[in-house]
């Protein structure tokens, strides 16, 4: 198989929005307001998005050998096996019953990755992935409108969606609410935004790699199921078997057709398919023990900017996440009187 030539990474692939700093500040302020409202409803600080866990699992992240040069970048330059912690969650910043159709997330933290990080002292490479290949609000300015709708219509999901749609009546606007309500281990999950990929630019995803996981896509959450059914399903799965995902990258081959500053545009997989660079292997285990859930939700943090300089997040939707995750994460840890800690080895992760 031949592939189109990937573009080379350059700093000027990114274009800052007019007033971007103000947009970022307003987004963070509104999200903090929503988090405070959620806190008053739960009396416990939760994440601004992806508040509800469905399972937290540990395992191995195995970089494949013999990758072609365009894929052998950053931490994928040499074959290696890393420890990893993966959290499956639902996208909203509130605790919705699992019977509700919501985008789901998979956050992958690869521990103790060598190489120059985006900030000194960081040790992991995090990948924050969502069930959809795009984010309907593809840049920070449009995203702010969605966040504004969430803040104004807090607790009223339908009104939030309606307000978002009124502003941006694209069919993409309701994408997250049309997520098939299937087993969290049956989804592929995507980075949505673009990232530097060493010499190139890429998006990431993980795709189920066992038949058992793929079969689970046939089964949807039944009406009347318990509000925490997804964590029960994930737990039942890991009680008896391992899960595997292929970790894949989609290289940017055309900056016009595959924009970096607009994450609402899906990159054409016929021009540049997702190609496997690593295997994510999650052995059978207890995926929802209290100690592990609390550690993942209250102590740890997964952030797109926790990572290598070689994998710098790109585009305004990623730039808003730099300050966003940091400032809102700090608020969550403060309100829960917790000190943020991230593991450098799986020994630190409770069973």
């Amino acid at each position, binding site marked *: 198989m031949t592939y189109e030539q990937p573009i080379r990474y350059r700093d000027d692939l990114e274009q800052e929005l007019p007033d971007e700093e103000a947009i970022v500040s307003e987004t963070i302020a509104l999200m903090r307001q929503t988090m405070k409202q959620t806190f008053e409803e739960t009396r416990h600080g939760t994440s601004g998005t992806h508040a509800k866990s469905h399972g937290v699992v540990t395992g191995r992240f195995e970089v494949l050998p013999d990758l072609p040069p365009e894929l052998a970048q950053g931490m994928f330059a040499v074959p290696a096996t890393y420890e990893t912690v993966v959290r499956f969650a639902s996208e909203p910043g509130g605790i919705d019953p699992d019977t509700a159709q919501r985008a789901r997330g998979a956050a992958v933290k690869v521990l103790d990755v060598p190489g120059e990080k985006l900030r000194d002292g960081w040790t992991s490479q995090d990948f924050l992935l969502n069930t959809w290949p795009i984010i309907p609000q593809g840049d920070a300015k449009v995203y702010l409108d969605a966040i504004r709708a969430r803040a104004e219509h807090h607790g009223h999901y339908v009104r939030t969606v309606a307000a978002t749609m009124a502003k941006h009546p694209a069919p993409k606007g309701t994408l997250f609410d049309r997520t098939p309500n299937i087993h969290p281990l049956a989804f592929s999950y995507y980075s949505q935004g673009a990232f530097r990929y060493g010499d190139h630019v890429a998006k990431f995803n993980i795709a189920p790699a066992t038949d058992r996981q793929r079969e689970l896509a046939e089964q949807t959450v039944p009406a009347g199921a318990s509000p925490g059914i997804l964590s029960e399903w994930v737990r039942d799965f890991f009680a008896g078997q391992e899960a595997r995902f292929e970790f894949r990258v989609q290289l940017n081959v055309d900056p016009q057709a595959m924009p970096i500053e607009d994450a609402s545009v899906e990159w054409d997989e016929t021009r540049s398919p997702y190609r496997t660079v690593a295997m994510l292997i999650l052995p059978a285990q207890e995926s929802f023990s209290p100690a592990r859930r609390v550690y993942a939700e209250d102590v740890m943090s997964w952030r797109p900017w926790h990572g290598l300089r070689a994998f710098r997040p790109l585009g305004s939707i990623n730039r808003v996440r730099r300050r966003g995750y940091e400032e809102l994460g700090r608020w969550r840890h403060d309100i829960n*009187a917790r000190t943020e800690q991230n593991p450098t080895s799986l020994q630190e992760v409770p069973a």
Partner: protein
Amino acid sequence: MTDRDQPTTYLRYTPDVEVEQPHEAEDIQALRETFAQIRTMAFDKLRHAVRDAHAKSHGVLAGTLRIHDDLPTELRQGLFAQTGEHPVIIRFSTAPGDIVSDGIGSAFGMAIKVLDVDGEKVLPGKQQARTQDFLLVNHPTISSGDVHTYRRDQAVLLQTSKAPEGMQLAATTALRAGADLLRKVGVDKTGGPAGQAKPHVNLLGETYWSQGAIRYGDHVAKVSAAPVAENLTALTGEHVSVREPSAYRDLTSAFFAGNAGVWELQVQLATELETTPVEDASVAWPEDVTPYRTVATLTVDPQDSFSPARRVYADDELSFNPWHCLVEHQPLGSIQRVRRPVYDDSVDFRATTNAATVEEPGNIDELPA
């Protein structure tokens, strides 16, 4: 207050002031299951384990309890046998076993944990806790005065708490309006087992009662905490507007940011089981026969009553339990007996689910600022 007008004889405590109720074990078991359901429902909604009763904190305070000297013999009992000062932790709360908007009417709780209390405790343990708890509610009696009635009422509450919060809000608003009308014509029906029809009043002006009886050394008593400082009594009966979900937390924080508080801890001694029954906590003991009499003064200085560290400590790591007590203050009556296993269940669930350690404080310094 003088002792001249008091009856000369008070009921003497003996184990047979308590009478096991018909089917008590079965009712207790049913209640344990009801509360287990309440806990699970709340966890599913909050993804954090909270108390199955009095889940929502409005403020947590450090204070001092000064036991009065020269108490008459019948009041100089148990904790109150020795004059002196004890540090205390106070937690204000509302009754539901879930975090709901303050707009939903409910009874308030004032839980007092007295520290540095020596003496034999009721709960067994290698190292006995040095605490004595008093769990008080802003109504002198509990309408479900025995375990059987309590079982029935809690089952109803469980069903209503399954309703969407908007409906609960509308229902309690209607209840409150109805009760307000009745109060205007002189009928006081607080309405509902959890006090849902109580008007929105300032919780800091309220008097709080144990509702159930406790052993009081040689005697049997009910306990109350009544505000005595003018800044608190000025708030008694004050209607407050509840627009914010945590309006009561907000007004508690605002008050204690600049104000001290003083309450009197009072006890009402039982005289004989006919008029001052132990097994039916729905009966108000006649105050003309046996009034509440002050045995100690509770004071708190201005402080931050809701810092994150303090809230987390009180919500997740502390438990208030009428059974944290001296042998001389053993809770009495079936409404108290049922609380022993239910509180244990609740603490176990909270500790396990939140992966937290719930322990009795060794000293007041364990309460974060």
